[in-house]
């Protein structure tokens, strides 16, 4: 245990437990305060056997609400890793944990094969047996052509070297399920005069692995990504991710979870894409005054990990700047899917109950389209409301 990371800031005040969506949905979870800082005092004393920490969805509402600045969810993730160290990891957690690697392996396989392979009733039945609830939504692989286009993106030769360069950390969700989002963001950034590269050396951010207690595998990816980010930073290249969870993990969580990799390796921030674009819009670098309005009512959902980033609600702010756009910030909490949490058996009901508040609130807005920065949230919202969901920057790219 890294000794500078200790539970001393916690005052046992219960605010995190009030704001924890999992605790609100089930009493099987002891709550973030107990599994986090309270049990941490016992873990330092050698007691590691709290199984309830498996219920934490790592949504980070505890960290967001804590009046004392305690990184509660990080305690929980480390506790889960300690708990899992000598246990067999269930196949389910291996599947979700390594979903990025699966997507990478299947990068040359056409989408219809993948989707059929994954979503046909027999597969769902088998997946259900290994622990992925058959009712849960699974994202669909994107057409091979789009996946290849994003992975193989190069700045146009004519512009290379003329503008600032930024690197896209697309993240697994965008890479394999929604490369369009990545391509849209590239379009916007190029419009603002950036050269965008998509480095081949990035690995999965490791968050799904960490959530499955696969600390070692996550650490391996962390080291690789850090190396790459530092290399880019030394060339003055900023890293941008369309996925708030990747941005959070790479930009902030590595420091807490893998401090030995981070300390002394220099600062290298990772920007969440919408926040970055909002910044360049406000600097006047990207002109959106000509953007056409988006038809219909929009409902905006701020992903929990975006809120944890402390960047506000950039997607909402951007779309609001487009004249004629009717958009409402739903502000009704976690979508319940929390990455792959709500797909897992025994968690599906928790996720469904958590998300119901959000889905009802979206319903009440009368929106025809939902907007959210997070791919997993978009999957969950579409599943819960039947409404299509888009990344705010995709809408912006189309409106320009």
């Amino acid at each position, binding site marked *: 245990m*890294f*000794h*500078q990371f*200790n*539970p*001393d*800031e916690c*005052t*046992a*005040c*219960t*605010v995190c*437990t*009030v*704001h924890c969506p999992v*605790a609100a949905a*089930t*009493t*099987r*979870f*002891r*709550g973030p*305060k*107990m599994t986090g*800082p*309270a*049990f941490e*005092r*016992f873990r*330092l*004393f050698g*007691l*590691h*056997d*709290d*199984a*309830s920490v498996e219920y934490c969805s790592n949504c980070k509402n505890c*960290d*967001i*609400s804590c*009046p*004392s*600045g305690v990184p509660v969810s990080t305690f929980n993730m480390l506790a889960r890793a300690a708990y899992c160290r000598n246990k067999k990891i269930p196949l389910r957690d291996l599947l979700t944990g390594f979903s990025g690697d699966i997507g990478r392996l299947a990068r040359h396989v056409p989408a219809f094969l993948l989707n059929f392979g994954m979503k046909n009733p027999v597969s769902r039945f088998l997946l259900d047996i290994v622990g992925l609830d058959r009712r849960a939504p699974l994202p669909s692989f994107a057409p091979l052509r789009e996946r290849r286009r994003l992975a193989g993106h190069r700045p146009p030769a004519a512009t290379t070297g003329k503008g600032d360069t930024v690197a896209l950390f697309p993240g697994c969700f965008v890479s394999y399920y929604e490369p369009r989002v990545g391509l849209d963001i590239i379009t916007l950034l190029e419009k603002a005069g950036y050269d965008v590269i998509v480095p081949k050396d990035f690995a999965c951010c490791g968050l799904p692995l960490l959530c499955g207690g696969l600390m070692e595998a996550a650490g391996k990816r962390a080291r690789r990504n850090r190396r790459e980010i530092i290399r880019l930073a030394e060339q003055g290249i900023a890293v941008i991710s369309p996925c708030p969870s990747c941005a*959070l993990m790479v*930009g*902030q969580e590595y420091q807490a979870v893998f401090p030995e990799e981070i300390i002394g390796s220099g*600062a290298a*921030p990772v920007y969440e894409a919408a926040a970055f674009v909002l910044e360049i819009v*406000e600097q006047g670098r990207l002109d959106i005054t000509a953007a056409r309005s988006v038809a219909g009512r929009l409902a905006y959902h701020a992903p929990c990990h975006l*809120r*944890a*980033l*402390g*960047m*506000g*609600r950039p997607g909402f*702010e951007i779309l*609001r*700047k487009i004249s004629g756009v009717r958009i409402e910030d739903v*502000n009704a909490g976690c979508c319940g899917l929390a990455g792959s949490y709500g797909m897992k058996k025994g968690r599906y009901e928790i996720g469904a109950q958590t998300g119901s508040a959000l889905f009802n609130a979206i319903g009440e807005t009368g929106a025809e389209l939902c907007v959210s920065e997070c791919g997993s949230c978009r999957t969950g919202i579409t599943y819960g409301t039947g409404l299509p969901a888009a990344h705010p920057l995709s809408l912006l790219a189309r409106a320009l």
Partner: protein
Amino acid sequence: MQAADETTVVIIGGGATGAGVARDLAMRGVSCLLLEQRDLCAGASSRFHGLLHSGARYAVGDPEAARECARENAVLRRIAPECIEETEGYFVGHALDDPAWEECWAPACAACGIAAARLDPKEALRQEPGLAADIRSVYRVPDSAVDGFRMVCHNIAAARRYGAKVRTYARLAGIEVGNGRVGGVWTQGRDGKHFIACEYVVNAAGAWAGEVARLAGLDVSVSPDRGLLLAFNHRFTGRVINRLRKPSDGDIFVPHGTVVIYGTTSVPVQRPDDVRVETDEVLRLLRDGEILFPRLRDYRLLRAFAGTRPLYTPDAAAGRTATRNFVILDHAESGLQGMVTVTGGKFTSFRLMAEKTADLICSGLGLRASCRTADEPLVAAPSEHLLERAGSVFPVGGLGLAAARLGEGLEDAVARAERDPWKKTLLCECELVTFAEFEAAAAQSSGLSLGDIRRRTRMGMGTCQGNFCALRAGAALAEIGAFAALAPRRMLEDFLEERWHGIRPLLWGRQLREVELERGIYSALLNLEGYLPETLPECAAGTVCPVTRSGDGGRDARFSVGREYDVIVVGAGLAGVAAALRAADRGRSVLLLSAGAGVMTISSGSIDVLGVAGGEIVSGDPFARLDSLEPTHPYALIGSREVAAAVDFIAARAAEAGLSLRVSATDGGNVWLPTAAGTLKPVFLTSPGMSPKGLYDAADTVVAGIRGMKDFSSRLVARGLSENRLFAGKTFTPVTLDLPRHLRGGGRDVTALDIARFVERPGGADWLCKELSSLPVRSQALLLPSILGVDEVARIHTSLEEKLGLPVAECVCPPPAVSGLRLQNALRRAMGKSGVAAFDNVTVTQAVVEDRHCRGLVTQHGGIQRIFSAKSYIIATGGFYGKGISTQPGQAVERIFNIPVAVPSQPESWSNERFFSRGRHAFASLGVAVNRDLQAVDGDGAVLFSNVYFAGRTLRGYDFAAEKSGSGVAVATGYAAGGKA
């Protein structure tokens, strides 16, 4: 069996030595009675490091003591493993320490037979990364941690098993002496004076030994020598760490379960009960400790405490020069038969002291029985079967802890939890003490103080220092009808006062935050001081605000555009939210930055204005009292009209968002709401479900609790209210509902919030209604914990009253406070409607100031620094708890703008001796000094920053807890600041 008023040996002192003597004599078949003036182990046996010496510390100066320690260390590990944590220890030499000491120390250890193995400092650092990098040499020794409470309690239990008698809270009033012999002793208990005839008196009174001897006309020179100890919140070392130097102050760190104890000092004192702790002494000790643990000051202190060692000083040696060896004085040598004093020594050798004492007495009695205390285990190991049963009862990891703590009481605790599965619930979450364990310990204790149970269980000794478990403990005792002689309010008060004693010398940083939280709960939320009005106010069903009409401008909410806002508010508590709403109401574009969700869920969700002023209850219109407060009071600064307008404003915004706050008293004054502690708390606006009209009017009221729901005991509430003079002649009947099936057996403990959420779900309200309508008791009113839903409270409350046909009221409950959450949710909805942009999870680290004008606020997050700019800024970051004001010993500063806060010069004058004193604690009203416009000012009244306004607890000049004015000041100053910005 011999009657208790006649025995062979009377032992004076319930510390380790006395308990050891009792066990030893009882095992040899000698009838004995132990008398203790307070609870067991209340003296030095619990007020030391808890170090089971290997002897290495004494190897150079006192080889005899060292050898003795080494032997006894091995004996105690063998007979009492449940009291000992085998940690091993390091002796660590630092570059600053004299190497000559090490040169004579290592051979001395070898000579005493103490295994001291040299270790590579690098390896030691790997094992204990908190140690300083510049340590020079490390030796490994067989030191261990020993739990003094537990050792004494288990010794006593063993002694009882062999027939010894024990009386606690029995003061020795005299020793009967005649014809050169001891004839007996006089005790003074709560029920008068008693004589106990005996042949021998063993004076094992520790630092009090001199006083006891005096009662027999003897002179024994025992000098009390005070040692200071500090308890830290987490286990920053897993081993005992000794500093390798000539024994001095601050040499020893001992890990104990979840905490680390560090000490000590050596200060000769006049009286054995002089266990004062002074802040300067604490700071000196911390400075010493930083040599070995450089981050020591960053670790959270829990408390400071002191014990008085009994040093035997016949030749006027004192302090560290006095011997640590024990002495046994047979006073027959000075002409008094039958009196033996055993004193000096160390905890580690208590068993040996007892053995030698018992040998002496047995030879005097002509008995040949030999000592068996070194051979027989202290506690019989629990059977496999019992451990298996216990395994399904105790929380994760808690079984071992509970088994070791309870000793023979384990079976009782297990049986209790098996009978009532909800008793697996944690009463003390910081130290993992279940209700079952608590009850088992209560059954073993005197029934006179919660402290007795604390010592047996460690309840209240962890992170929160009783903030959350004290009320639960009172509730648990009320439920089982124990400790009935004590008024619950007094019992809680005494317990928290005792905790306060150890916290008071540490009033800075995190301890001060915890104290502010504690005052928020026990003083502001529960009014444990017990303020009461002359009579209950007359109540109506409640009028909706406004109380006054404020003619504020139109509401032309405008959305923020771009990063340049009109107003940035920092802080999402009530003050920040009120400020943001008001500024938005005035057409400003507003950005709210917050680190954390604020603390509305720690509040009652009602709005108080002023309940108490100058220690007197405010009766009638509280607004009328505001302008006559001290001129620096925030209310006096902004004026009562603004305060009234603010209260109207917040009520209107809450009402628009679906939460109607009401004035219940017909005279427009405060109403007094019942609380979960059985007290009454003054508020101005009540939140739905809380209007006490029905309760005031009813001749009989049913108080309904839920079995297995934490923090609320219907018996505690019913007792508190029926003993309240304002309810004279009225009856309160406690009843208990069963937990909804859905919430049973989950693993997490159920609170009022879980029930409220359940009640709000489909079928939940019907469940509640059905349970309540099938109660066997009829009444005119019904009192409940706050469980009537979260956001749907108004609908659920009305429908329940209609269906039951009687008024229903909720009590104010401790955190997680449902009523506070209702207000928070409503005001957040209101902010959404007003177009306030909110950024969660951002900590503002500093401000950019040019020419006394703030240009922006700097945030730092994940390596990304950002600057947020606006025309004006409102700082509502809270006080100590909200981290708006940060403190260090003797210093306080506003965190963002670095505004120094004036503080009392002496650490002791920061606070009062009593926690629940009616006078203000000086620390409570420390904050930023402002002018009437809520701008910070310097000592001369000059404005520091022209476009920055302060609101809420960041301000100086009021004590939210003592005045019962927290939400009122927050709303009023937030509203006022929002009106300026």
